[in-house]
């Protein structure tokens, strides 16, 4: 039995349909990340799971039980909010134990659960403080503690790291990963940050305009993007996308260069079809001694050293290309440089439907 089953969930606001039939089935212990840009419907879906918004159609089941119409407190869920949403006048201790207090859990049992959770999150020394006396990172830990203490079937996280600075975000991300590995809890996590999605998820649902563009493991989403949108959204810098047309020799890019197609793609696209060719920046490397069938002659326009890598941006046949290279690579602005990539790194999308080919 699935821990969480989302069946054909729809949500409309007047004439606007924000969720257009979402289907996801989650096994116990899975970490699902709903990934997408603002307005894609990911937070709406989370709020529907939590019971903070009503679905216009479909069903949601937790542990086999339909929870639509059930009060949020009776859904066996806990939620962590972007703004932490701590009760400002209650101590950290009471904040963490609030859900148990409202459920009339005996004081002794409550105390034990709060202490256990505080120890797990290493916030025992903060229990007597008020939220106003805590830093952002500490507040986030308390918010996570408030969710953990109840041991619900499903945890919901609504962009929990968005308000933290970059360093703390990374630390908390690792902490969340550690907690998930340790406790094996089922989590639905909303974010627009693809790094968070890639690092935390066991499965990612990339959402766009109220639909799921792709649902798969981080590797599947990264290595085999189902649509051009997913290819562009996951990965930083985003995948290079070059317009072209299929010919007998491969893909002729708009502007001249021809890129040979690997065997796996040769038979799936007919000559004359307009396509978009995708290559991840990190898949590009400088052309070596050996001749290659996949060469991009790039006129370098910008060179940026980020520390761990050198990000090079230029143009091939008038189309923009970005490459991530080792930091010591000797390249300067204005140079012409040939880049190549492995055939496995080549992605092909239909220019019209934007769906992956092959």
């Amino acid at each position, binding site marked *: 039995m699935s821990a969480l089953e989302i069946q054909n969930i729809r949500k409309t606001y007047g004439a606007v349909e924000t969720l257009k039939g979402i289907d996801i089935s989650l096994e116990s212990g899975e970490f699902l990340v709903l990934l997408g840009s603002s307005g894609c419907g990911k937070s709406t879906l989370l709020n529907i799971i939590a019971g903070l918004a009503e679905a216009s159609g479909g069903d949601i089941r937790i542990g086999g039980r339909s929870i639509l119409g059930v*009060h*949020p407190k009776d859904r066996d*869920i806990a939620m962590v909010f972007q703004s*932490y949403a701590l*009760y400002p*006048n209650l101590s950290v201790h009471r904040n963490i134990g609030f859900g148990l207090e409202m*459920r009339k859990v005996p004081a002794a049992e409550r105390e034990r659960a709060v202490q256990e959770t505080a120890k797990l999150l290493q916030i025992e020394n903060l229990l007597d403080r008020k939220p106003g006396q805590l830093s952002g990172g500490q507040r986030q830990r308390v918010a996570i503690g408030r969710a953990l203490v109840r041991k619900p079937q499903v945890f919901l996280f609504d962009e929990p790291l968005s308000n933290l600075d970059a360093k703390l975000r990374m630390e908390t991300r690792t902490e969340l990963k550690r907690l998930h590995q340790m406790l094996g809890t089922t989590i639905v996590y909303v974010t627009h940050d693809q790094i968070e999605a890639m690092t935390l998820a066991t499965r990612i649902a990339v959402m766009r305009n109220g639909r799921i563009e792709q649902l798969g493991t981080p590797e599947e989403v990264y290595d085999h993007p189902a649509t051009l949108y997913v290819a562009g959204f996951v990965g930083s810098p985003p995948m290079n996308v070059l317009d072209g047309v299929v010919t007998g020799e491969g893909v002729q890019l708009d502007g001249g260069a021809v890129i040979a197609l690997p065997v796996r793609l040769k038979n799936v696209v007919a000559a004359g079809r307009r396509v978009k060719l995708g290559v991840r920046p990190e898949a590009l490397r400088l052309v070596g001694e050996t001749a290659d069938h996949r060469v991009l002659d790039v006129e370098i326009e910008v060179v940026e050293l980020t520390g761990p890598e050198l990000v090079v941006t230029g143009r091939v046949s008038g189309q923009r290309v970005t490459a991530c290279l080792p930091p010591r690579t000797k390249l300067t602005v204005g140079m012409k440089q040939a880049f190549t990539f492995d055939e496995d790194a080549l992605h092909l999308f239909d220019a019209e439907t934007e769906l992956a080919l092959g």
Partner: protein
Amino acid sequence: MTGTSMTTRAWLLMLPLLAVMIAVIGWPLADTIGLSFTDAKLVGTSGNFVGIDNYVKTLSGSNFQRTLVTTTIFAVVSVFAEMVLGVLAALLLNQQFYGRTVLRGLMILPWALPTVVNATLWRLIYNPEYGALNAALTQIGLLDAYRSWLGEPGTALAALIVADCWKNFPLVALIALAALQAVPRDITAASLVDGAGPFARFRFVILPYLAGPLVVALVLRTIEAFKVFDIIWVMTRGGPANSTRTLSILVYQEAFSFQRAGSGASLALIVTLLVAVLAAAYAVLVRRTAGSNA
């Protein structure tokens, strides 16, 4: 610009206002203090110096003590009722429902109307011959015969408190409503997920955000209620049998009706002092509330 010249400039800029304030507040206050130590009448002699006689007589007189009790009852009951009604109205008007905006606008009406209009309106409602209250109560069977609500010592003060509440609860509601808008949606949502019922939600989620603004409303309204004059003067003039006489009415009667300017001045200063003590106590309360919410 140096610190000294900045200070000089600041004083120069404030000087005109200070002069006006000294002329319209400082001088009359000083004059009143001087007057309170005399047996001056409103018309005629400027009076002889009598020391603290006026104060002793006022404070030991049963008139003052009875009036102080009446004023305290009026202030405590009306302000308490206004706070409760105001918060309830704000909670209601914070819900999503059709016509909410219109209702929010209408609610301010009693407060926006001049007190004289309000008082006249309530005099009509309480009228012993054709008042709406008598008509309504007799028609639903709660009253056998028409009563003179403002004419009986047992009901006049209560009737005044109702009128004062009706006029002033919208101010509290307005302040509370503004505070309610500041309650973060996420915290309300978190309390729902945590299983807090309506009372727990009010106690732990809403009240912390309401407390500060409500203390300000409490300060404003208590001081106003303690000084109340206009609504009572229009409706009962302190009667019947002085049952609705508050301190401000007593000051007026002493100084103008009985023309005892010296005694009236001492009474006015005592009232001023009482209000100042109240204001100071509340200032401390406001600071504490602000501190606890920080």
